[in-house]
């Protein structure tokens, strides 16, 4: 995210539709799954497959990232889509959040 061009803009209020001037990308939201000691590894893999339609191998890579590194960035999306994915993951009681990129 650009930090120098528009200092008067309040964070999180009205930059959603703008384009990042440095990267040329639309500002996005990261959907993150965080590690916890209660969700079973096979269960987490399965939920990633269901929610994102991933093949098992890709889902396992992200599950292991969560397990070994404490978190995994699953997708970068618009606010609406990120929110949708967080809802889906939380329906399965995974520890998921969305953060501004």
């Amino acid at each position, binding site marked *: 995210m650009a930090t120098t061009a528009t200092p008067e803009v309040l964070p999180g209020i009205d930059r959603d539709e703008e384009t990042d001037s440095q990267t040329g990308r639309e500002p996005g939201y990261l959907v993150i799954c965080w590690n916890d*000691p209660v969700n079973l590894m096979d269960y987490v893999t399965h939920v990633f497959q269901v929610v994102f339609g991933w093949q098992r191998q890709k889902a396992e890579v992200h599950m292991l990232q969560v397990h070994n590194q404490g978190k995994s960035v699953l997708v970068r999306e618009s606010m609406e889509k990120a*929110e949708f994915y967080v809802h889906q993951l939380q329906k399965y009681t995974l520890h998921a959040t969305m953060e501004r990129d």
Partner: protein
Amino acid sequence: MKLIRTNRKKSIFELSLQEKNLLDEVLKLYPLVPATHHRLSRKSNIAQPNDHQRLLEESLTAQREENRKYVQAMLHQPGHFETTTSGEQLALSGPEIEWLLQVLNDVRVGSWIALGSPDPDQDKKIAFNKKLLPHFRMMELAGEFEMVFLDALTGRASG
């Protein structure tokens, strides 16, 4: 409980009467995770975080109410379980197993929260006492049932 056969439409599980009673016991606890447990964001760096958080909680509450009705139907309406000579058989479609996984994991995570969210990585241990023991039992039981249902979805036979 074990998976005895599966096809595109249904998976058939065999349970002893004791296992069925344990499954009932777990399912009756649903929902267990507090509605306010989930946070949309850790950093609160999204626009109107309170509105989005409220919508999240409303959405999850509605979902849980829907799930709760399914649980009641499963436990109290005939047709889900069939008594056999060796115990009980439970027939579930793929979507029903998906739903049941959500319910079981809610009980598992809710029990873990009730135990004080123990985490060995952070040296946060369970302070065992008689009051907490049922939560530990339910957390383990829910996980055991989850594994059997996950095996059914991935086509792995369970023992």
